[in-house]
């Protein structure tokens, strides 16, 4: 088991290297060279000597491979560089945004798990019933709905026409402020989870061991709880884990809509301000969290499911 975990972690390294290389190339090398453009724009009409000295200050005068080495060396030490605009270390800017982002993502995932799994489970048990039809229509709609639109509608309903909840902002970080953005972010995942759960349960219901369980006279309720739910959960939790990673990426739009002070809104602001180190830091952070969650899910999956061989 440990060997499996270690090997899986080692396989993770080339992916990390690839991702960092792509992000570096995208933001530093391709035509336009975002960093130089930012400099040229902000220092328009200034002395070329000043531009030259700025280039030196930010290390933009060095050849590409040296810059990449520099960037990787710092990255390994957990240093994301300095903001062009605010001259603050990117680490500090980013770290204070992680908490709110994580809170939002976890709350959204909890909402999705608590509603999506039971919905999918009961629709599969009662195939063709009104519950099944309604929840599957809901699932397709939930996947097709743009999150920011759902957010706007919820905001109108819960904050404007019935002023129950605050429209936006982090406030004191209380649940009241968290509820609307978390639900908005959670709905499409709830829909996906309901679909996955339903598909998994339908498949399991036709498995041989379920027929055996029925044949030996076990009560339906017992079969559903012991055999169906447990086996379905293995499948569903994998999807749920992978989706949690994707959720971190998708917080961007919801954070922006609800003025939530997370990594996503920092990312969007930094793109508007052409603050490349901050953009790079946010992108890397979001991708890393996605990758790390995927890795953890993979290892957990092997732990839960005895059928996976750890070779």
């Amino acid at each position, binding site marked *: 088991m440990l060997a499996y975990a270690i090997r899986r972690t080692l396989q993770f390294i080339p992916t990390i290297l690839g991702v960092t290389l792509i992000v570096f190339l995208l933001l530093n090398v391709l035509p336009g060279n975002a960093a130089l453009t930012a400099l040229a724009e902000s220092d328009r009409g200034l002395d070329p000597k000043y531009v030259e000295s700025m280039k030196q200050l930010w290390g933009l005068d060095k050849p590409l491979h040296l810059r990449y080495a520099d960037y990787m060396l710092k990255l390994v030490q957990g240093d994301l560089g300095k903001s062009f605009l605010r001259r603050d270390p990117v680490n500090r800017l980013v770290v204070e945004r992680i908490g709110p982002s994580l809170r939002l993502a976890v709350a959204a995932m909890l909402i999705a798990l608590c509603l999506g799994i039971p919905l999918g489970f009961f629709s599969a048990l009662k195939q063709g019933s009104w519950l099944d039809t309604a929840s599957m229509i809901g699932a397709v709609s939930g996947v097709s709905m743009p999150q920011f639109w759902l957010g706007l509608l919820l*905001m109108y309903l819960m904050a404007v026409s019935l002023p129950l909840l605050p429209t936006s902002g982090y406030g004191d970080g209380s649940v009241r402020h968290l509820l609307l953005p978390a639900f908005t972010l959670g709905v499409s995942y709830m829909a996906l989870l309901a679909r996955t759960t339903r598909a998994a349960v339908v498949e399991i219901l036709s498995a041989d061991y379920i027929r055996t369980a029925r044949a030996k006279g076990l009560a339906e309720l017992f079969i559903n709880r012991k055999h169906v739910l447990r086996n379905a959960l293995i499948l569903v939790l994998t999807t749920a884990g992978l989706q949690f990673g994707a959720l971190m990426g998708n917080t961007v739009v919801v954070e922006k809509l609800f003025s939530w002070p997370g990594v996503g809104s920092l990312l969007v602001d930094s793109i508007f301000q052409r603050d490349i180190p901050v953009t790079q830091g946010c992108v890397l952070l979001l991708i890393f969290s996605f990758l790390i969650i995927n890795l953890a899910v993979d290892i957990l999956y092997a732990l839960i499911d005895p059928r996976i061989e750890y070779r």
Partner: protein
Amino acid sequence: MNTLRKLFRTRTNILVGGLIVGLMSLIALFAPFLAPYHPIDDANLMFAQEPPSRQFFFGTDSQGRDILSRIIYGARISLSVGLISQGLNSLIGIILGLTAGFFGRWWDDLVMGLTNIMLSVPSLIFALAIVALLGPGLMNVFMALGFTNWSYSCRITRSQVLSARSLEYVQAARALGYGRFRLMFTQILPNILGPIMVIGTLGVAGAILLEASLSFLGLGVQPPTPSWGSMLSQARDQLFTAPWVSIFPGVAIFLTVLGLNLLGDGLRDALDPYTTRTRR
């Protein structure tokens, strides 16, 4: 009984999905004839934030432009972004997947490595990184979305090629002396198009949603061009005074994406022999 129901469900998915997508395409094609006003030039501050009425079916925005007309023209932006960028994705994915599955060895390793890296980056984040480099604008949105989501097409093409490669008709063609590229493009590709089409249809839906998100963030299609996403980006500030600004463009996005998703799901069910299997 169950088979019948499944068949019916599949058919309704394709039918309803196809109907919505067809309707949206017609609206996009005939926008100049259908729109009662010009989407950009007919701005009249005298009529700013008018609620829905007989004169303006969906109301007007803060600059007094007719929302219905802007939605009708917006269909052109959304559908062209969806089709063009997903076209690019499919093209990249098919070429890489075909060659990787067919040639194998180091090329396969390389392509699959790249695919796994792409899959490990959430597409919105990747698109944002490209926009950060290129700047906002319609052309850049095509690029940002056209290079983000090819990994799904690539993976499905490759796996289909791997299973088709050893089938008899391919072996027969090989025995007849077909060259590699003729084999790939005239024998294998036409026979694996089904799953690729399914991924493509769902990909168009995904691209439309992504464009809407980018434009909503202000990093996609720029005003005054009527894009459904950018129409919603100013809606939040008008939620108290003009809630209709928030509603109708979202309905348009939702219906279009829903139609494409239904179509994609229906096609998948229709093509997949396993889904018609009955339970119990």
